[in-house]
Every structure is written in C-alpha cells, then in structure tokens.
C-alpha cells in the first residue's frame, strides 16, 4: 500500500517491455528491437563512423550495427547501435531486465559511457567507499536504480 504510487512508473515500464517482447508487428520485423540511440554534443567526425564506433562500443566488434548522423538543430551527433542478433523474447522479458540480463542493457550502458567520454572526458563514478548499510528496502532500491527502465534504458 505504502509504496503504491512510487511503484507505478516501474510497473508501467515493466508492462511496456513485456508488450514489446511479443512477436514483432508487420511493419518492421524487428519492431521490438529498435536501435538504441544517444545524442552526443560533438561533431560527427569526433564521434566516429559506422565502421569505427567510439569506445567502449568498439569492444562489441562485429556484434553490432552502428549509425552516426548529425542531430537536428545544432544538437550534436546521433549515435545509434543495434545488436545484429536480436535478443530472444525471453532475454528481453521483464524478469530478465530486472535481473540485468537483457543484452541490450549492456549496449545502452556502453552508449551512455561513450557519450560521457566524448563530452566530459570521463565516466563519472559513484562515491566510494559507500556509506550505506544493507536494509531490505535499500536492496530493492539498489536493484531498481540500475534496471528500472525499458528497452535498454538504464
């Protein structure tokens, strides 16, 4: 009861993911597996190219397709990535997502890091050592903190 309202967006995200994991629609046979994209406040030349994606995306090698194009209105460069092998419905199901096992989550994280490296020169790390101690509520929060979104959103 107490958590009802706060749980809403998370549940909604979960439902959305489950729905998208159903067999793909007619228009695009990879509709449930769209390109993951970030916009980077840099020129396309600084970001790279389809054949030469920026770090740390380069470590996916041949496993990903990469697209680089200028963002509209002077907003930098859109960098898009998609796994060549679409993840199975099971691998992208809500439980798999919560467990952090959807392979797209790893791609999303790499995209976020590529953006941070290109823009800010480093990936900001959380404070260490931590000052928190384990409580049941805290653990649940820790899980959600990284894995609450849909479709590879962190």
């Amino acid at each position, binding site marked *: *009861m*107490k*958590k*009802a*309202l*706060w749980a809403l*967006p*998370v549940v909604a*995200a979960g439902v959305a993911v489950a729905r998208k994991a159903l067999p793909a629609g007619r228009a695009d046979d990879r509709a449930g597996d769209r390109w993951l994209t970030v*916009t980077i*406040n840099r020129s396309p030349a600084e970001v790279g190219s389809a054949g030469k994606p920026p770090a740390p995306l380069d470590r996916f090698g041949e496993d990903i397709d990469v697209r680089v194009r200028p963002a509209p209105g002077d*907003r*930098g460069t859109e960098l898009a990535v998609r796994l060549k092998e679409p993840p199975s419905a099971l691998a992208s199901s809500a439980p798999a997502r919560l467990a952090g096992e959807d392979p797209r989550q790893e791609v999303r994280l790499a995209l*976020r890091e590529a*953006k*941070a490296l290109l*823009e*800010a*020169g*480093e*990936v*900001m*790390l*959380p*404070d*260490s*050592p*931590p*000052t*928190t*101690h384990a*409580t049941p*509520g*805290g653990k649940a*929060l*820790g899980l*959600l*903190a*990284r*894995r*609450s*979104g849909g479709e590879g*959103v*962190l």
Partner: protein
Amino acid sequence: MKALCWEGVNKLSVENVPDPELRNDQDMIVRLVAGTTCGSDLHLIGGYIPAMRAGDVIGHEFIGEVVETGPGVRRHKVGDRVVVCSFVGCGRCWYCANDLWSLCDNTNTNPGIGQALFGYETGGIFGYSHAMGGLRGSHAEYVRVPFADYGAFPVPEGIDDTSALFVSDSVPTGWMGADLAGVKPGDVVAVWGCGAVGQMAARAAMLLGAERVISIDRIPERLAMTEQHVGSETIDYTSTDVAAELRERTGGRGPDVCIEAVGMEAHSDGPMHLYDQAKQQLRLQTDRPTAVRQAIHACRKAGTVFVLGVFAGAVDKFPLGAVINKGLTLRGAQQHGQRYIPMLLERMAAGELKTSHLATHTVSLEEAPKAYDMFKRKTDGCVRAVIRPGA
C-alpha cells in the same frame, strides 16, 4: 570521518564513515568549512522522496577548502576557498552548454530511477537520494566534488564564509526563479514562502526591476525578516484571503509573475489540507501542492507561475483549467547554479545581495540532528542553521 547520515524516516545521526576518495581525474576533495540546512533536506528526511538508503550522508549547500585535486583539475589548487554548486554539471553536454546545468546528462550515476519517475533523469546533486545520483552529501568533514572545474567557485576575499555559503544553492535558486519567470521592470511579483529560497527569489525580482514584490508566509519572524532584509511587502496567509488581497494590491489585475518557494510539504488551514495530507500519507499522491494551486489561481491572465519548491511525483486537484483558460505560462526547474554563481558573488561583493541574516543558528556536526528538528518545526526563529563540521 564524521558525517550526518539519514538512517530512516525522520532519523538522522552522526556516524563514522570512511573518508571520500578521488574517483575521477576531474574530482577534488573539499574540507568543509560550513554547510546549511535546506528545505529540500526536509523532504528527504521525512521520507517524501523515498529513494534514500540507510547511511546516506545528507547536505548539499556548502563552502570549503580544497585539500586534494585530481590530475584533470585545472582551475583550483589545494588551499583555495570555494563555494560549490549543489548540482553537479559536466560542463560539456548539451544541457550544460546551454546553461541548464541541473539537467546535465553525465552526472547522475543512477539514471534508472529518474527515468522511471520523470521520463529522463536529472543531473546529480550532493546528498539528495539515489534518484538524483546517490552522491554523498556535504554535512561531513570532507566531500568529493566531481567535475570540480565547473561546480566550484573561488570566493572573493571580501565575502565572509557564512554569506558565501548560500551562493551554493538558495541564492541561485531564488535568482533563477525570477530570471526564468521573465521578471522585468514594471512587474508585480508575488512569492510564496519566506524561507531562504523565497527571500532570495524576492530579492532577485527586485534587482531585476520589479515594481513591487509581495512575499507570502505565515511565520511572523520570517515575514518580519523578509520586510527588513529583503525589502518586500508581506502577506500573512493565515490572516486573510491571499487571492483577494493580491487582487486589490495589484489594481485588480493580479501579479504578473508568481513564484512558488514552498514545496511538497506546503501547509494550509483549509479543508484541502486534510485531504492532501491524508492522500499523501496513504501514498495516493506524493506531494501537497497548496501554494502552487494558490499561485495559479492568483496569477493575472497570461502571467507566469514559476515552481521553485521541490515536488517529487504526482499531485491531486491540479487546477489545469486555470492554466489553460487564463493562458498562463507554468514553469519550474531545479537550480542551474553554475549559470549564476559568478554574477551572484559579484553582486554580493558590491553589497547588492545580503544573505548573512538567513543564518539564524550555527551548530557543530554533533548538534546537527537537533538543528534539523528545529529547522523542520520552525522553532526558535530558525530560518537556516549553519553547520560547521570543524567546530
């Protein structure tokens, strides 16, 4: 080192925690000179923003001395006295580049919660729950400052510690409200809340040329302080009908700009308060928007309402009809401090902006839990308690 930790709803205690460490090249470590209680902390302490974990260090408004710099820090050196913006900005993403620093793309290390709640996450802020990045807060002997070249500012000689401290958060917040609400010469501006944020919003409105500024609260010493140190007119909302009073004081037009500096725990005497409180306690709404409703209702046609008070989630009985039918502009933001801090320090040095009166109490870290209790209940005339971890 010692730090003020959140240990559960309404439970603060001073704990021994490991010292913070440099984690990135652009980090530095600051030894705290002074920090202060902020209305935002109350929302965290009371559990209204539920993304806190036991042991989290709170505090986000502070001044200190640089004791260690990472190899990527260019603009600061050990020994510098700096005031640090409460929000962390990388300085180079599109948002930072466009002076929308609290929306930085690269400083929230826990983006998932913000994405689930708001669609997109905010930037990181010190000591402000895991939804806002989970960074350690500043009520401690030391704090790590990421992207130090962008978030820390040297304090000019002539400005004392206590005055400069508030340039970290409450002064730029108030300034931003008046600035982004578009206050201009000739405007009549109404400000809800006579806490530090509301007082600074009122002062900013004056400096931006407002013809009249009217501040609203119920606490007598805060109303008196605002009249004396800020120079605005006041209304005690418990003694009159605020909308009617504002209408008559503005020639029947209503204020051009209404700034809300109260937040999600707003108080009222009316029956709506019981309704809001009950719903909030049952978690059927997360926030109590009393002052926002009143501001929207009182604002003139085609005026602007700016929400500085912090809200975390959903509100009930939101007067959307007034927004559309009166053609209002409704805006809000977490503060973009880096955009304003250098200018604010200059104005302070020139004597245009005064903040030292806000510091009604000064305490040590050990006394901080009691000071927060006093600040929460607004007893002993407390407006802001300054916490000096070195004392």
